[in-house]
């Protein structure tokens, strides 16, 4: 068991002797600090500090001792040190040598100074602009990458593409299906409740068909995919960037856009329309079952009314949006992934951004499509 650090004061003729003993370890720092600071020493006296019975002295306690000696100097107390064992003195001297200079801690520019404010304003204005330009340049690179692949289809990493399609598509089926099914059920419940007041319950099917096929199917699928696969893309590319794998590709003369980004975006382009179709069907099934229990419309009548309620374009207006959403989800995810730098925190930051921006873009483009379709009259 380590012995506790002690300080004993004894008077020998005129000189005071401070006898330090025991093991001076980091664990006992508060105790040591307390003992040293509560010592009462008369001013302008002579003190002998006896280190010879100290069994152990580590750097932290040596530092405290050093500070104590400084304080003595300030109080004009002259002191002599009776040396202890060589290892203890070596530690003491080492700490003496390395003690940080008491120079003023670097002053930070005040948060409210005018220069700081202007600097901050400029940064806030320029940074998003820079990011936007970078994103634009990335869009260009990716477009060229896709065109290159279309011209030379052999250069496409086919196995990677199939693997990605499996990951972002096939394994997303359960969650997309479940969400769409439930949304179909919810739509019918809410719609039937409202339309019952007008005795127009049968139009619940119109409500279901139009909202599921035109908007909800694609929107929900896109949001699920942005959250599920967008974040995965960003985190994966971000880690590869940190691990210098992207640099390794560059050095090998392989274009990371071609081998990493293009297959990912292509996979989403292929998968999202298919997932949307699946989501549409699941929403209709969910809605159909709910109509059966709520309004009592059987499958045959449901199908008949469904066909009457949708136009030529209802289904396609939903599906047509899928590739556009897919492209931008993939683009943003890969862009953010390749912007990762520094450490783990950056991966988290960019993954968050990737999902937020992905979903934001999906909704912006959805609004744009709505305007476009209404202008075109479909």
């Amino acid at each position, binding site marked *: 068991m380590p012995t506790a650090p002690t300080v004993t004061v004894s008077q020998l003729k005129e000189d005071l002797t401070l006898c330090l003993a025991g093991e001076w370890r980091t664990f006992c720092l508060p105790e040591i600090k307390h003992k040293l600071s509560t010592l009462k020493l008369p001013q302008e006296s002579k003190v002998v500090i006896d280190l010879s019975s100290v069994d*152990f002295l580590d*750097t932290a306690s040596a530092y405290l001792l050093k500070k104590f000696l400084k304080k003595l100097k300030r109080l004009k107390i002259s002191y002599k040190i009776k040396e202890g064992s060589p290892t203890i003195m070596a530690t003491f001297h080492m700490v003496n040598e390395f003690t940080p*200079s008491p120079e003023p801690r670097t002053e930070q520019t005040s948060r409210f100074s005018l220069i700081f404010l202007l600097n901050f304003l400029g940064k806030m204005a320029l940074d998003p602009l820079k990011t936007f330009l970078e994103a634009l340049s990335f869009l260009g690179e990716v477009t060229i990458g896709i065109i290159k692949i279309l011209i030379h289809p052999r250069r496409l990493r086919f196995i990677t593409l199939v693997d990605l399609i499996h990951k972002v598509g096939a394994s997303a089926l359960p969650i997309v299906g479940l969400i769409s099914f439930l949304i179909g059920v919810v739509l019918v419940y809410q719609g039937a409740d409202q339309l019952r007041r007008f005795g127009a319950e049968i139009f619940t099917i119109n409500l279901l068909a139009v909202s599921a096929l035109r908007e909800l199917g694609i929107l929900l699928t896109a949001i699920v995919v942005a959250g599920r696969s967008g974040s995965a893309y960003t985190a994966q590319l971000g880690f590869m960037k940190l691990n210098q794998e992207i640099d390794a590709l560059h050095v090998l003369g392989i274009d990371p856009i071609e081998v990493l980004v293009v297959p990912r975006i292509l996979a989403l382009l292929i998968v999202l329309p298919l997932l949307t179709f699946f989501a549409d069907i699941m929403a209709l099934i969910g809605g159909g079952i709910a109509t059966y229990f709520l309004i009592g419309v059987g499958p045959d009548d449901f199908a008949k009314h469904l066909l009457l309620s949708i136009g030529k374009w209802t289904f396609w207006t939903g599906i047509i949006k899928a590739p556009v959403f897919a492209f931008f989800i993939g683009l943003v995810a890969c862009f953010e992934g390749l912007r990762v730098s520094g450490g783990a925190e950056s991966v988290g930051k960019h993954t968050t951004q990737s999902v937020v921006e992905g979903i934001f873009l999906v909704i912006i483009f959805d609004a744009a499509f709505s305007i476009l379709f209404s202008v075109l009259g479909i």
Partner: protein
Amino acid sequence: MDTPVIDINKLCTSIQGKKLHEGLSLNVYRGEILGLVGASGSGKSILLRTILGLNRYDSGSIRIFGIDHRDQKSALSLRHRWGVLFQSGALFSSLSVGDNIRVPMREIGHISETLMRDLTLLKLKIVGLPEDTEAKFPAELSGGMIKRAALARALAIDAELLFLDEPTSGLDPISARRFDLLIKDLQRNLNFTVMMVTHDLDSLFTVCDRVAVLVDQKLVIGTATSLQKHPHPWIREYFQGRRASTLKREVEK
């Protein structure tokens, strides 16, 4: 002789069915610097991880300061008695270098903020980093600086036992030599125990009191000089390579 700081007895470990250590025994005594050597993939890092309690082992026993770390309660107290320098530093990337060094200090508690800050600067100076490194983040440091900062964190609470995983790899020979001397000096003054995985023959010859070589799932223990004459072909080649190279250097001069 007093009880060993690290006491490994008949340790067997296997990873995914592959046996890495079989009946491996090792004693490391207080105040000693032990070097651990072995071919790549021979299980040095796994051994280190197993000693640190990061890996499970099949049979045998590991006691550190007489404590078996499978005993959850007392194992926690071990964490305040050792310092670890991981191969790639393993600095927390979201904390500044100063905060990284303060993490172990905060864990033991009761140290005032100003004192912690002063001690941080002291440790930085001891490992040879400028004071302004304190506010920097690990991502802004070079490889050598990360090693030093990580060493400062390992030394933060003047632990009694230090594990170093390839402390000098990736440093230039002069820095590596200084690093070795620094560890040797600190060890002499503070009398802690060091176990280091290394491939740096200089470290093995100048710093390590004993060297343990991991071959054929077991440890062969000796000093760097005595191992030169060991009959095992791998060990002989490893230690005589240096002789050959120093001889060659002398001839060229």
